[in-house]
């Protein structure tokens, strides 16, 4: 039995899932908070109030499309614990998320990141590395940009010194207080969803045929999107979409008990939200987990039956693709 290495945990004997996101970082960087926010639907303020014990074992969270997210115990010093088993980074559907606390001095955390990257890229040169610059709440816009640039430059420069390929490294600014964290997680998982190119082009054509502005295919429980059309994603709009899903959930509670008797039945839920501006939102259930969320001008969503007809066809295609 190896000593306290990164893969220590109750599930040590279990092999890791094929499609996996590995979440790592220093202790107290915010990993467990992120997991609890996304997968346990905790409120960020409650997370701040509660005392989260340090993660001692690797925890697995199931995401849609067979992707599993692993929350690893934070490590102070890779060299001390002998480093993670390089095997965990291998495989075409593996992605690394590294969480850095932006409210603390990043030096130590960056050194650890570099050590981790060395091991990981040696095992899997094509591994996507996603750096979450976390806890950006409380930082001014200016400071946010400065922090990101500082961290980005140091990582890329150091990788350059060691001739490591940095083309798969991405940076995200995140906090549990806004949907930035869900958006970042979505961006990470997006690339691992089976046949993601098909999905994207399907949504693109849905968008243009139905004159919609934006379409998300998302997991209603975690609000992570696993596909969207290729137009740029306005963070505000995504935040709004998330809030809409919460509200629909709250309102549907009114009819708790009136729904299906078995909870594995797809009830064909459709929602329309109208704004006092030229905007509407339409949501269409695809399967038990997934829904299509469409944003468009009122005129389009007004032709409700046509839109529903198109959405039904797209939903069917999505079910086939994901099967």
């Amino acid at each position, binding site marked *: 039995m190896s000593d306290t290495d990164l893969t220590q945990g109750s599930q040590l004997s279990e092999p890791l899932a094929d499609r996996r996101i590995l979440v790592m970082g220093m202790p107290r960087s915010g990993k467990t908070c992120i997991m609890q926010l996304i997968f346990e639907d905790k409120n960020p303020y409650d997370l701040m109030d509660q005392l989260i014990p340090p993660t001692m074992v690797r925890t697995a969270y199931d995401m849609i499309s067979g992707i599993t997210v692993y929350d690893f115990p934070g490590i102070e010093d890779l060299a001390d614990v002998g480093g993670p088993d390089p095997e965990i980074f291998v495989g075409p559907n593996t992605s690394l998320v590294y969480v850095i606390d932006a409210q603390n001095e990043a030096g130590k955390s960056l050194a650890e990141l570099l050590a981790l990257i060395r091991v990981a890229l040696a095992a899997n040169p094509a591994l996507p590395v996603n750096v979450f610059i976390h806890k950006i709440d409380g930082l001014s816009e200016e400071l946010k940009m400065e922090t990101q640039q500082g961290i980005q430059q140091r990582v890329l420069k150091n990788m350059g010194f060691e001739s490591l390929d940095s083309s798969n490294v991405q940076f995200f600014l995140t906090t549990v207080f806004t949907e930035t964290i869900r958006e970042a997680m979505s961006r990470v998982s997006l690339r691992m969803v089976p046949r993601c190119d098909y999905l994207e082009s399907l949504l693109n054509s849905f968008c243009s045929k139905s004159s919609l502005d934006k379409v998300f295919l998302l997991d209603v429980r975690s609000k992570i999107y696993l596909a969207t059309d290729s137009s740029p994603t306005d963070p505000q709009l995504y935040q709004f979409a998330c809030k809409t899903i*919460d509200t629909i959930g709250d309102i549907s509670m*009114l009819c708790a008990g009136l729904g*299906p008797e078995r909870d594995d039945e797809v009830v064909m*839920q*459709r929602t*329309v939200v*109208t*704004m006092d501006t030229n*905007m509407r939102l339409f949501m269409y*259930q695809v399967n038990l987990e997934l829904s299509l969320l469409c944003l468009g001008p009122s005129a389009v969503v007004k032709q409700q039956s046509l839109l529903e007809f198109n959405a039904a066809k797209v939903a069917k295609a999505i079910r086939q693709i994901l099967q």
Partner: protein
Amino acid sequence: MGRSGAGKTSMRSVIFTNYTAHDTRRLGATIDVEHSTVQFMGDLSLNIWDCGGQHKYLDNYLNEQKENIFGNVEVLIYVFDLETTNQESEYELYDECLQNLGLYSRDAKVYCLVHKIDKILDDDMKAQTIARYERAIKKRTKGFDMEVFGTSIWDHTIYRAWSRIVYKLIPNMATIERHLRNFCELTEASEVVLFERATFLVVCHTTVDETQSLNRYMNVSQAIKDYRRTCQAVQAPFHSMEVRNRYYSIFVEPFTKSTYILVITTDPEVEPAVTKANINAARSHFVKLADNSEVLQ
């Protein structure tokens, strides 16, 4: 009325302005009395006096100012801070307020809010605490119509108390209720709820099971108010919402100038378009009722 820090201004800000519970952490102590007027249900004006609860002001209210403060009061809302360190002096203050109310506004209604109830996590403990307060307050309240509520700005309980308070203030409520019931039958809806537009407080509803349904509706009040704030932030003011599936349909629609309506149908035979048409048809009729409390009795 209530001691400093009890939560009076917080509660007023959450109900009548767009504050979230978090925003109230920014509030400072109220200086003297803050007067505000809210239009409620068309032509009903609520004059709200938020009386700062620091000692120097309280002394003033109970002495020099008593006639001004306690005269012409229709409703006294007394906020008890659950976390008070001196229960006895809290009750003494309440006694003094009631004494003055008895002198100057004999017919006032009294509502006692046992506030910050979120601080008690256990549901049984919550109920026990409220019951204990209720017994103690009842004993001290003579000659007034009085109700006790456990409240917190962190959940729907605050909406519940205020819905009850304003319900009693709307003069033609019985008529509105009757018409709402008729409407419910005509549209073959299973439930219809009327909300006040600005506050989203529940005005009236058609279900019989009072407590159970109210709690469900209060959650909607809270959810829609929250959602409206989000919509505002993306410059797309909320208008209406419709959730449909194989088993039920829920409509949230602007109704009269001063109300929103929520309609639930569970009959799959009833087409959504028909329900919407019915809502539109009923609108002109209710405009007379809900927006003008003087018409029809």
